[in-house]
């Protein structure tokens, strides 16, 4: 009984084990960086580091959206095609209708949130399993993107500031020696905001509670459906931001793009130590997971490893990450 429980050890039990896993993921990231920098002098150059961060931004933002949903015990397979859908919406508003830039940004984010609202409603109200509901949404959004765009890319040439969203550098304007692109800045801002919501707000608390024991939350008199829908809507809005980032980087909305991104996002979430059965996970872990994936891709490319093999390595990393998580929990 509690007479034999030492206070210091147990009170921090859960946070410690979570931190432990994050430390492990962080350690792997550092190890990868060390290995690649020893293997190639080009790896640690500022331009390459910025390229890695820039390459992380889209997948990182999508992975943050996926993290929120996965912590509730759900899954969102539609994040990739939703990203594209939001990019297409921005294209419609800015290029087709010629509206000013802020309205295009707003439209993309709102389109994402609305789509999340629909997914969440399917899941919470109609009780369709998340896997199926978001699989359906994935296809619906892919089709809608093609229909709306007329299957052709929409270019943003008429909106000059658009490429700045991802490729400009606000930080570089202030500190010229640190030309960190806005896309990276946005990734970290989104991560900070999501982390804050998860740890400090009622929405975040219910995100964890839903994944931990949904029936207990419902029997506490909480409207679990509403909170679940809110989480999916929030995740959808974040996908809208990802849509802006990718469209800005390509200076176009590519309607055929998007499918497959959801799996990269889920991979980053899992590598970052978030449990697919819900109830536990962190944004910082997901961020590290996304970085591991892009460091790996970049490093292997620098070492001239074929793209095909990069995919194989990523697969192995995912399995390894989950296995270390299992080992950690068995040790408890």
């Amino acid at each position, binding site marked *: 009984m*509690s007479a034999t429980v030492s206070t210091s050890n147990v009170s921090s039990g*859960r946070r410690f084990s979570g931190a432990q896993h994050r430390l492990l993921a962080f350690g792997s990231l550092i190890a990868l960086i060390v290995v690649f920098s020893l293997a190639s002098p080009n790896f640690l150059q500022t331009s390459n580091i910025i390229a890695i961060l820039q390459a992380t931004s889209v997948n990182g933002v999508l992975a943050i959206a996926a993290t929120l949903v996965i912590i509730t015990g759900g899954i969102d397979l539609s994040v990739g095609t939703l990203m594209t859908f939001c990019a297409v919406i921005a294209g419609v508003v800015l290029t087709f209708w010629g509206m000013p830039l802020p309205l295009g940004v707003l439209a993309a984010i709102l389109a994402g949130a609305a789509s999340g609202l629909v997914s969440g409603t399917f899941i919470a109200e109609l009780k369709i399993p998340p896997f199926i509901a978001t699989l359906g949404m994935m296809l619906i959004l892919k089709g809608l993107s093609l229909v709306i765009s007329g299957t052709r890319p929409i270019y943003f040439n008429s909106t000059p500031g658009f490429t700045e969203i991802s490729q400009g550098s606000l930080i570089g304007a202030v500190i010229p020696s640190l030309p960190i692109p806005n896309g990276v800045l946005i990734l970290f801002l989104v991560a900070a905001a999501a982390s804050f919501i998860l740890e400090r707000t009622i929405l*975040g608390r219910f995100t964890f509670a839903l994944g931990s024991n949904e029936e207990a939350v419902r029997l506490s008199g909480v409207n679990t459906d509403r909170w679940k829908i809110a989480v999916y809507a929030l995740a959808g809005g974040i996908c809208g931001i990802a849509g802006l980032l990718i469209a800005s980087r390509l200076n176009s909305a590519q309607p055929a793009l998007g499918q497959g991104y959801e799996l990269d996002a889920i991979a980053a979430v899992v590598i970052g130590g978030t449990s697919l059965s819900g109830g536990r996970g962190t944004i910082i872990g997901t961020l590290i997971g996304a970085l591991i994936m892009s460091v790996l891709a970049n490093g292997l490319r620098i070492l001239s490893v074929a793209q095909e093999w990069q995919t194989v390595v990523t697969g192995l990393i995912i399995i390894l990450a989950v296995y270390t998580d299992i080992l950690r929990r068995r040790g408890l």
Partner: protein
Amino acid sequence: MSALVVMKDIEKSFPGVRALHNAQLELRSGEVHALMGENGAGKSTLMKILSGIYRRDGGEILLDGKPVEITSPRQAQELGIGIIHQELSLMPHLTAAQNIFIGREPRRGMGILLDEARLNAQAAEIFASMHLKLDPRTPVERLTIARQQMVEIAKALSHRSRVLIMDEPTAALNDAEINELFAIIARLKAEGVGIVYISHKMDELKRIADRVTVMRDGEYIGTVPAAETPVEKIIAMMVGRALSDERATIADHAESPVVLEVRGLRRGNEIRDVGFSVRKGEILGFAGLMGAGRTEVARAIFGADRIDAGEVFMHGRKVDIRKPQDAVRAGIGYLSEDRKHFGLATGMDVRNNVVMASLSRFTGTGGLLKEAAMHEAAVRYIDQLAIKTPSDRQEARLLSGGNQQKIVIAKWLLRDCEVLIFDEPTRGIDVGAKNEIYKLLNALAGQGRAIIVISSELPEILRLSHRIAVMCEGRLTGILPGGASQEEIMHLATLRGDALNDNEKRKPAKGAPK
């Protein structure tokens, strides 16, 4: 009788917790050996070591006098040690026979095809040896909990177990089913099987146990013969002090205002026209056999399940309850019988569980949570209810059953519910903690809350209730005054309606509010 199993000086620690220290057990063949202790005393841990689920840190296990290393559940099975867990671990979609022989199915056709016929025949053989009438081809999900338990026992027997560990096997059984189980235990005993029996129910031990080993705080306290040792002594060994079993005089609440009134509640065959009321400061007990519909009534009032008809009034005003959140808003709290599944988010800490039903109260602008206020509230209830936890950040699953129950109670106290429905509040809780829960319930009633207690243990109902509502087969068969005799309650609990024309022909005696 020779010692079949000897466990000596067993040590086991988990990170931050010493679970066992100097734990001992000696099991003879052909005996029922009760293992007793409060929740968290280490009984289950000790048995998980014996059945290969945990590895011990120190000590010795002798089987037939020879030291053995038990490294896995599979090896334990091969040594003839079977365990029936508190939570049944069957696959509901498979048949009884498929469950029993899972992973060991008889094969034919060069080992490629499953021999379903032989499988069923072998299962039938085991059932016959247990004098159990059960079709091996029945899917387990269609069996009652009691029958599922029998399947678990059959599974253990199929391994030719000489040692059988039963962890609270009667927790979900009614009296008839318990008798059936005890008959099987008696037969196993006669065949020389040694049985370790974990239970909190004193009367059961007196009926079937030969010897009792008591543990407390992970340590061995002593072994005594079951028949000769008075219950008080066993309890004193368990809690380390003597317990008072005082029975308060029954308060009369006939003059107090009615807080909750339920009229004409119906749902299918489970709830048939149930109506009653609870007054301020009153504890209304709900007695009845398993499946009488008591939990269903509670869940219906709380809005957890749909109803066909019925009205709920709070202070005489009709309230429309469709979902649990409506009930909570009306001031009704429900403490489910299955804490782990429905009451607690076991992976979350004490603080978050306590504030779960009142989280909006701890939310500031922008949805920001007020952690400091949450901490304060949690600590207040940890003190007030004497919840044993190292801190309010402790994960709920690491606490004992009694303390988990207190967390759920704290959750509803914080929400300030006027009506509290307790469904089996002391299930799986040890004797010492039970008394604390009883005191708590009385104190809550004393504060003017209206309380409903559903319990399958008659002594508990009799001890707590100011009035006793009795149900049978979905009907409220009567409401008795507190202090009614067990016979009166059992009479009403078995007062079955005429199965053919049930609704009109006979009106059940309803305890109308005065």
